[in-house]
């Protein structure tokens, strides 16, 4: 029997506001424990929340980008539960009237397939704190710095069938939020994390199986592994005649498997009710229009435009648009040198290689588009040849203050197009290597490269390569 995996996601994304959602404490990551706290976010009795305007704005921007219907009238509710990372013992969230519903995301998987995920709803809520667990005793230490950091929770329909789809969707979200500038989307800092609801069913069935939930997984790698593992676990269980139990499981990425949170879980009944301390939100048509107009071109839109306007392949366009910083560098450079194709080639080839080699992220890139454009023009106009170009590009990559023209002049790197000079050098190489010439004559044409290499080397690699090729061929064929 074949099995089908059915996955729905709840993705939490931290919004990049300066202050928390309901108080003025800083949202900055990584402060000493409990130093970004005030009576409001530390849950002291008598305190009251006041909504951060920017949170609503960022949330709406996300809702629009995900194609949602915006609930012009929306409200906050309380979700009640006891846990030491939740100082008020309730989370202010949205249940009855979330700000966005019924969205739709078109994304592309790693293998290039176009897919659609439906968004059930997006709501605003506050983050909880962090628990630091003592490696020794039986205690944990709550740190409330993250309490009250603004989040949106994006709830998808169960539209994913494997980890590749999930990752494609998550990449889409990540790049979209980055483009919108509404989140840092740093998974390692927990600013984007996913709860995975997963069930399996016999292929062809249209009924859902019993699902499990794995919470707060915050790396793409771990998400992929967790999906594969959980889907395998459920299938094996069912094939052995067992039953899947609806439960929350904890994914342990080090052990590479999930565990039932079998500690006698208290009844889950969150007793949501309207938050009495926050009046409802009413969103004007005008605000929505302004935000929609301000919406920048998103990754997938750029990708399509690059294919259409620059004739880039789907794959290349995807690589260039995945990160906002890359797309910006590409567009500014291509604009200055009017050569998108050549710009793309250098970025996809040498630049990606160097980024990889030196572990440089897109955000850390330090290339000056003006110099990069000068460089592309120099290569295109044959002012430097490709061999020299590779080393020049490394300099551009390494420093923002690098000046291409000056460097070429000072180091005398201009391409040698002087046919007479090339002919003279090539003749010397041929004359000094009679044995190799004989090999060539006897049909060992592989040694041709030797003559090219030697000639190039004696010209410090700066010679026009096609001219060298032409002259060496001619001389060899005419050698006696």
């Amino acid at each position, binding site marked *: 029997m074949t099995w089908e995996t059915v996955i729905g996601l709840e993705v939490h994304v931290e919004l990049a*506001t300066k202050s928390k959602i309901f108080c003025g404490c800083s949202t900055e990551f990584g402060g000493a424990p*409990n*130093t970004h706290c005030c009576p409001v976010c530390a849950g002291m009795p008598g305190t009251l929340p006041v909504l951060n*305007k920017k949170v609503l704005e960022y949330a709406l921007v996300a809702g629009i980008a995900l194609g949602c219907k915006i609930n012009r009238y929306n*409200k906050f509710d309380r979700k009640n539960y006891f846990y030491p990372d939740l100082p008020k013992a309730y989370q202010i969230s949205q249940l009855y009237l979330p700000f966005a519903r019924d969205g739709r995301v078109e994304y592309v998987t790693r293998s290039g397939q176009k897919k659609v995920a439906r968004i059930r709803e997006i709501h605003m809520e506050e983050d909880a704190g962090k628990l630091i667990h003592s490696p020794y005793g039986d205690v944990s*230490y709550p740190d409330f710095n993250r309490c009250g950091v603004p989040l949106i929770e994006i709830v998808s329909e169960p539209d994913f069938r494997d980890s590749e789809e999930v990752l494609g969707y998550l990449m889409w979200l990540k790049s979209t939020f980055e483009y919108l500038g509404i989140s840092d989307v740093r998974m390692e800092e927990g600013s984007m994390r996913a709860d995975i609801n997963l069930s399996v069913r016999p292929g062809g069935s249209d009924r859902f199986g019993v699902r499990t939930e794995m919470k707060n997984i915050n790396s793409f790698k771990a998400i992929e592994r967790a999906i594969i593992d959980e889907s395998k676990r459920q299938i094996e269980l069912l094939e052995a005649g067992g039953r899947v139990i609806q439960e929350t499981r904890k994914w342990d990425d080090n052990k590479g498997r999930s565990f039932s949170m079998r500690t006698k879980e208290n009844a889950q009944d969150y*007793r949501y009710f309207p938050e009495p301390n926050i009046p409802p939100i009413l969103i004007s048509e005008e605000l929505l229009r302004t935000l929609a107009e301000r919406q920048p071109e998103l990754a997938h839109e750029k990708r399509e435009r690059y294919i259409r306007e620059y004739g880039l392949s789907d794959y290349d366009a995807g690589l260039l648009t995945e990160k906002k910083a890359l797309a910006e560098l590409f567009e500014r450079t291509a604009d200055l040198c009017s050569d998108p194709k050549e710009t793309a080639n250098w970025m996809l080839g040498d630049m990606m290689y160097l980024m990889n080699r030196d572990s440089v992220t897109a955000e850390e890139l330090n290339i000056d588009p003006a110099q990069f454009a000068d460089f592309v023009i120099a290569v295109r106009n044959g002012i430097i040849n490709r061999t020299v170009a590779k080393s020049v590009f490394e300099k551009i990559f390494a420093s923002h203050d690098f000046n291409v023209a000056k460097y070429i002049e000072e180091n005398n790197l201009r391409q040698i197009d002087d046919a007479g000079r090339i002919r003279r050098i090539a003749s010397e190489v041929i004359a000094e290597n009679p044995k190799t010439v004989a090999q060539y004559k006897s049909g060992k044409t592989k040694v041709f490269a030797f003559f090219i290499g030697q000639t190039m080397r004696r010209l410090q690699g700066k010679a026009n390569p096609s001219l060298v090729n032409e002259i060496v061929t001619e001389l060899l064929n005419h050698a006696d």
Partner: protein
Amino acid sequence: MRTAKEIVEYVAELSRIKLDEDETEKMIKELGEVIEYMDILQGLDTEGVEPMSHVFPITNVMREDEVTPSFEREDILRNAPERTDETLVVPKTIE
């Protein structure tokens, strides 16, 4: 339909309030009376009435996204029953 005892035990668990047997019996009786009294609302026609959580129709009360100084950590932790210099202390939440 759950019995009164099951309901009281369920809400006590949700509320994190431990009741001994006598207290449970007392709560069954007293809560039962109050709930029965509240049931008078079931007889009122509320068809089509929008539930009202705020009596004033105010909306959009918001503040600017500005950072204000946090409190001294000591002020946040001072009232804790058990603490270190930096945090509260709670029984371990995972095994």
